[in-house]
């Protein structure tokens, strides 16, 4: 006798209050069968699970959209790839191929950029902590140093004396742009005069000269006007410095912080409504430069966008290991990826999609990771159909920060795959093993 097709048994209490003109979440399923034409099941079979997958096509699309929004309005724009956002070599290479220089915030990121063949002059060295020896190497190699504090200024003065040169520098400033809490930890404050005083010190020493002004007003900025305010202050300071010290500021750097299309926890509108477009950001910044520039030349404009160029190009594929029913009736799935790999789970509601359409009624479920830690919850409340052991879930967008901040904790750090422009997938980072974990232990 031929056996009948099996469907997992389900029962759900009917909550009439859930019915609305938008339909019932009981019947909605989000499905992702492939990424750039390659089946998600094929990807996990070939490269393992869990696995980070990056789409070069999407990276290129995001880069081109943002770059053309600026370059169509302004003649001299340079993007700097923010290494901390994702410093897998293959990812950095994609952005360098597209035209980005490197923006680094530590000696190891600096060394990574150099190892990738980026010349010192094409590296922006940011951050509050630049050890003396590393700072000296960066100066010798002609990197763009963005000064953060007076101690660093002292170090730079000493390096200039040692090397017998005048060091061209940029200063990082922070200011009140109407977005709170204000990012005042990095750089010198504009309103209280610290920034101007530091610049004055540079010129008095005769060992440093200011060539750039930099700010980075925050992260995931949902209001393009904040950039208008920041650019206004930078341009005012630029004019003041050029007038007072008879010196030209060659570039301004508005940093990063442009939002990606991710669902922030606590915000219920669609990302299409709340996230400013590339044109919004570009308009806000470039209009002010044109309005306030009093020099003969327009300053070169640097941007250090990270999240908005990679977040939507990254996926984490994870497989269902099993499930259990909790005493409150909720179904809890055990996945092979957890919060150790998803740093942004603290503030994002991820898009979670199944590898095919599953029969059966959706029910409230919980997604737990593999860690033997009570906090390992990827999603506390998601309606899902009954899933099988081995079902592959795609979690996105996870391209920004998740790989670089993924913790090697309890489980091995997973592999990463890049799907290139031709639609071919290749492993760009192998899964860790015991040798990786034990490396350098004595």
């Amino acid at each position: 006798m031929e056996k009948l097709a099996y469907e997992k048994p389900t029962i759900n209490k009917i909550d009439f209050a859930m019915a609305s003109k938008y339909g019932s979440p009981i019947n909605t399923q989000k499905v992702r069968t492939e990424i750039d034409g390659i089946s998600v099941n094929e990807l996990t079979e070939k490269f393992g699970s869990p696995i980070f997958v990056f789409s070069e096509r999407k990276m290129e699309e995001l880069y081109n959209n943002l770059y053309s929004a600026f370059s169509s309005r302004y003649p001299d724009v340079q993007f700097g790839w923010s290494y901390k956002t994702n410093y897998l070599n293959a990812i950095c290479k994609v952005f360098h191929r597209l035209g980005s220089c490197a923006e680094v915030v530590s000696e190891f990121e600096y060394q990574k950029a150099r190892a990738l063949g980026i010349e010192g002059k094409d590296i922006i060295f940011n951050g509050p902590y630049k050890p003396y020896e590393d700072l000296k190497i960066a100066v010798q190699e002609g990197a763009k140093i963005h000064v953060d504090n007076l101690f660093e200024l002292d170090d730079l003065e000493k390096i200039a004396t040692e090397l017998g040169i005048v060091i061209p520098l940029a200063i990082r400033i922070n200011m009140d742009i109407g977005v709170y809490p204000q990012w005042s930890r990095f750089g010198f404050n504009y309103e209280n005069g610290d920034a101007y005083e530091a610049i004055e010190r540079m010129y008095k020493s005769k060992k440093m000269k200011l060539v750039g002004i930099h700010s980075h007003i925050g992260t995931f900025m949902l209001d393009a006007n904040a950039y208008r305010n920041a650019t206004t202050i930078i341009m005012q300071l630029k004019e003041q410095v050029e007038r007072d010290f008879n010196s030209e500021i060659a570039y301004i750097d508005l940093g990063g912080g442009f939002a990606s299309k991710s669902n922030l926890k606590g915000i219920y509108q669609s990302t299409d409504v709340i996230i400013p477009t590339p044109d919004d950001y570009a308009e806000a910044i470039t209009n002010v430069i044109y309005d306030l520039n009093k020099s003969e030349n327009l300053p070169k404009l640097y941007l250090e966008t990270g999240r908005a160029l990679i977040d939507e190009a990254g996926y984490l594929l994870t497989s269902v290991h099993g499930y259990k029913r909790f005493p409150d009736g909720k179904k809890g799935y055990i996945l092979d990826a957890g919060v150790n790999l998803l740093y942004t789970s603290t503030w994002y509601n991820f898009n979670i999609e199944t590898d095919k359409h599953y029969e059966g009624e959706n029910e409230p479920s919980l997604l737990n990771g593999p860690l033997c830690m009570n906090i390992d919850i990827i999603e506390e409340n998601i309606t899902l159909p009954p899933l099988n052991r081995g079902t592959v879930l795609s979690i996105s967008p996870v391209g920004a920060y998740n790989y670089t901040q993924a913790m090697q904790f309890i489980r091995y750090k997973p592999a990463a795959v890049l799907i290139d422009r031709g639609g071919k997938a290749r492993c760009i980072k192998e899964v860790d093993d015991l040798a990786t974990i034990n490396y350098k232990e004595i």
Partner: protein
Amino acid sequence: MQAITQLVLDENNIAFHPMMGNSYQLNGISKEIIILLRDSKSKHEIVELLSQRYDTSYNELFIDVSDLFSKLKVYGLLG
């Protein structure tokens, strides 16, 4: 008396419990399991019977039927 014996099942896989006033959406196989439960079949007997009829393993059925039992308990339909 177990509340499950008082469930009214219809042809659209909707179950109604008149004393509690609750309605439930079932699928075909869960309706079958509830009917078997009302015939006083044990979990093992139900799994055995279903594994002969459906294209799945005994082990998978055991996990899924156990899960349904847990949920029936949460709803107060099974003691």
